[in-house]
């Protein structure tokens, strides 16, 4: 697929969006919300209020029961898998745990989206993945399968796979869990670099880790009782690495 033909994500909006897991209270109740763009957004809520579900709805992994979810003023809720695909390729999503393909090596896991969709030539795809692997010193684990590597490596592999296609919108679910301080800093630096290069324009992070979030200049949105609220002030960047 030609990357240039994919739509760039310019706006994200919910209109009366309702989502509930079967047998549970709704995570989103007729929610109207215009998401902040071109920024790092910290998604906060009480524990179990549905941050992960919110990110999964935004990634198109969960289908809302009602309302509309607009990407670039196109309602994506009624779209089929194939119709949503061009948007999906511009959205990166990383899991809080699990999510690696167990019968593929760490390298093959990270390169999978690039190769499957022919987003880059095989040589360029290999080069990009090798660069990432070297940057995070994962070389000795790259040929191992997920079950044979430490949790930190699994977590990093999931994070790198989410952004390897340089998406416009990146949704990170508890990205700092399982990572050491130096890896957290290095990952935050990578995100900032990609943002400066015009990739990962809209970053949404669900986290309870204030120290990690303070590595970015971020805005905050709260999910509470099925509705989203924007926090008025913009938190100043507290820690800048380098």
């Amino acid at each position, binding site marked *: *697929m030609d990357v240039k033909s994919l739509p760039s994500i310019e706006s994200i909006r919910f209109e009366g969006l309702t989502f509930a897991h079967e047998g549970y209270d709704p995570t989103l109740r007729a929610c109207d919300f215009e998401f902040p763009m071109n920024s790092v957004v910290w998604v906060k809520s009480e524990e179990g209020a549905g941050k992960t579900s919110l990110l*999964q709805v935004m*990634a*198109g*992994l969960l289908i809302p029961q009602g309302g509309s979810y607009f990407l670039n003023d196109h309602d994506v809720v009624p779209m089929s*898998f*194939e119709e949503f*695909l061009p948007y*999906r*390729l511009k*959205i990166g*999503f990383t*899991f809080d*745990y*699990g*999510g*690696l*393909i*167990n019968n593929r090596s760490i390298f093959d896991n990270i390169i*999978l*989206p690039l190769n*499957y*969709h*022919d987003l880059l030539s095989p040589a360029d795809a290999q080069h990009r993945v090798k660069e990432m692997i070297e940057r995070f010193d994962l070389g000795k684990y790259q040929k191992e399968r997920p079950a044979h590597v430490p949790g930190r490596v699994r977590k990093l592999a*999931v994070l790198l*796979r*989410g952004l390897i296609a340089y998406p416009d919108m990146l949704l990170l679910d508890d990205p700092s869990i399982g990572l050491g301080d130096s890896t957290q800093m290095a990952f935050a630096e990578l995100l900032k670099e990609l943002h400066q290069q015009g990739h990962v324009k809209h970053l949404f992070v669900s986290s309870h880790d204030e120290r990690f979030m303070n590595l970015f200049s971020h805005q905050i949105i709260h999910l509470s009782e099925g509705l989203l609220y924007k926090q008025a002030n913009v938190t100043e960047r507290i820690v800048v690495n380098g």
Partner: protein
Amino acid sequence: MSAWIERVDGLGRFLTSNIEYTLRIFLMVYLSLRATILDKAQGFRTIVGVIAAQVYFTGWQALPIISALALATGSVLVLQGLGNLTLLGGSEMIGSLLLVTLSREAGPLLVALVVVARSGTAVASEVGNMRANREIEALESMGINPLSFIVFPRILGGVISVLCLAFYFNLIGILGGFFLTKPLHDMPFSFFMDSLSKAFTMDDVFIFLLKNSFSGMIIFVVCCYQGLSVKKSPHEVPQVTTQAVVNSIIYVTVFNLTVTAFFYMSKLKSMGVL
């Protein structure tokens, strides 16, 4: 009166849940085919790789057990058939007996049972674990449709494997059965082959293809469906695997019986009995 209503209600619920399940199975066949056709990203190489792996695990690795089963079944049928047909003076019917019992009836069922036991369980638990480990969700998040990436190649690989295994079963069962029991009877091979060739009709080819291809499809669709029905936790995997085995065997048996019944009735009709 209320007990009677409860029984009818129970029967109704049983029927509707089974009809719903069957419709869901058909729907998954359609959706996986649709996803494969519409999936422009999935290259020929990717899909052929997964199909080849499935054929290797389901077909190639099952050859020893299929050989043993085919030899045992073929030998028993040759010995029992010859023993009884000779008493009736109809030993030239041995070919017809073998084709009807082995190729049309026992072959498809035994091959299906072996495939369910070996590969159906493997597919159901593999897909179930992928679901529990969020690999299916991960594929979706990367824009990879699990129906075209996981389900369709397994169904197609399964159908190819079952067809090949059934052909191999018939060949080994009939010829191997004859040669294995040769010391116990004095039938010339030319007589045996003549009897077989006289009994062989296009109906045998039709029934072979129909029963075995659909059995292969049923087994792998049901097992993939059960695997994908895992919701959250790995503890569901053994449960869905057991259910996959039970459902596959029920569906395959009912399908084989239905084909046989239709064929038998059409035979009777063509003979003017019905």
